């Protein structure tokens, strides 16, 4: 039967729309022209400048530190939350579920603003700790959702089998439950890691002076004159996103 070619055309057009801006960034990172309107020859100079830009690498190391610590914290809290939500039904879990799902739909700006008001009211000094708290708070919900999805497919009779064979509840959880859930937990952690690196709005509210993460640094560079350096930086970030996404797809295929 003849199929309409309209859906494939739309798909193609959307993919062009998705990638045209990214491809232009990559092309312009090798362009000698400052504004990138025209091709003025190939150059590595923007990458060399980026290499020497210490403020960018400082921001990068802060971003990585925050992302690693927050995603690990969110992984632990999210897994606990998912397990409790899956196994128990009570008024406590209703409240719990509401508190965990609401942040998913709360606009970033509201979360940033309310945390700022909270920290100011308590007199907490803004800094790495407040960024960490904020990042964990918006990541926990995402980890919970991913792990909850895994738990729904989990065969709980395996735990009974372990108990029948003489394992204590703790051993059964450590040797059966956690290893089998690990792909889901890691997928949630990876998602949290990406979200933490990506966040601009919430970090903007809760970071004090001197704690600039990479998105904040890029945003402030956008107002300045160092545009080609952002091209180079963006190219590196797009390439690593592509590699990470491909890796995640691979992993998922292996465990699916």
């Amino acid at each position, binding site marked *: 039967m003849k199929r*309409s070619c309209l*859906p*494939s055309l*739309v*798909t193609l057009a*959307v*993919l062009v729309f*998705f*990638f*045209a*801006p*990214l491809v*232009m*960034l990559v092309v*312009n990172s090798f362009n000698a022209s400052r*504004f990138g*309107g025209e091709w003025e020859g190939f150059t590595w100079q923007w990458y060399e400048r980026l290499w020497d830009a210490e403020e960018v690498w400082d921001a990068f190391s802060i971003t990585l530190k925050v992302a690693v610590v927050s995603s690990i914290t969110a992984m632990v*809290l*999210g897994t*606990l*939350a998912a*397990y*409790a939500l899956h*196994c*128990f039904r009570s008024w*406590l879990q209703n409240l719990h579920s509401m*508190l*965990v799902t609401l942040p998913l*739909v*709360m*606009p*970033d*700006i*509201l979360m940033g*603003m*309310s*945390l700022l*008001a*909270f920290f*100011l009211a308590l007199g907490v000094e803004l800094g790495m700790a407040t960024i960490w*708290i904020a990042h*964990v*708070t918006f990541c926990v919900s995402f980890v*919970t959702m991913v792990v909850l999805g895994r738990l729904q497919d989990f065969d709980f009779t395996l735990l009974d089998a372990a108990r029948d064979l003489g394992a204590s509840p703790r051993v059964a959880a450590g040797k059966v439950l956690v290893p089998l859930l690990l792909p889901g937990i890691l997928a949630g952690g990876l998602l949290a890691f*990406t979200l933490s*690196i*990506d966040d*601009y709005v919430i970090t903007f509210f809760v970071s004090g002076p001197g704690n600039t993460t990479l*998105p904040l640094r*890029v*945003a402030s560079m*956008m107002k300045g004159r160092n*545009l080609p350096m*952002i*091209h180079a930086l*963006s190219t590196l*970030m797009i390439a690593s*996103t592509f590699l990470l*996404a491909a890796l995640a*797809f691979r992993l998922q295929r292996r465990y699916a």
Partner: protein
Amino acid sequence: MSRRREFLLTLPPLAWMMAFFAIPAGLVILMAFRPSDLRGGVGEGWSLETLKALAEAEYLPVVWRTVWMSALTMVICVSLALPMAFHTVRVAETWRRWLLLLIVVPFLTNFIIRIFAWKTLLHPEGTLTQFLIRCGLVAEDVMLLNNAGAVLLVLVYTQLPFAILTIFAAAEKFEFHLLDAARDLGASPWQAFVRVFVPGVRRGILSACVMVFVCSLGQYVVPQFVGGPTDEMLANKITQRAFGDRNLPHASALAACLMLAVLVPLLIKAIVSRLSEKEVPP
């Protein structure tokens, strides 16, 4: 025993969310009922002054623009995402993996960098502007940046992968034999798409609509970087009040409005999905 175990497991995440999500959100709502003092701090006592100030003419166009822009973004995203999800589900397995990877990459690419990419393309000396001028499609002195069109374009760009992935998840469960049946019974491809496929994935469409609409409502980075001074959305006003004038009560009152605006579509979604659960045939 089980009760204690439940409590121990629930306590850490629950306490965290209580302390850093629920209490701060409540604080913002409370703050909306405090007067602001002249130096921009939080005043003493309680009042409805701040809430009354919201009715000022200054805010109405902003609220209207925010809702309008979000609705437009939602319509464009969903109408592009539908055929795309339709196509993605029907291609061969290997192609589908590649397509999904290609949809996910722009979605995972840093938000600020995606905005920056559009800013350079739309810049008067940027590639897109130069290209369009050379094709004779636009005038020499055209300004593609800093207007409502640019804000809409970038909003669609950032929200579209969301919509595609949501509708794709629904389309994966759709019985595609139904389409063949419709075609056998004489429906044109278009009729089969609109009258069989679209109703079949209506839950996915509803989720995508709510998702895109709600996420667009709270946007402030996009209007700030690619919009002009007349394209501000509600969230831009909140940041101005919070950082520009250091008027926290005022910012909080606006934030409380935004919270309400977000909750309404969510409520509608909850009600609609409850109703559609009831009408499932026996």
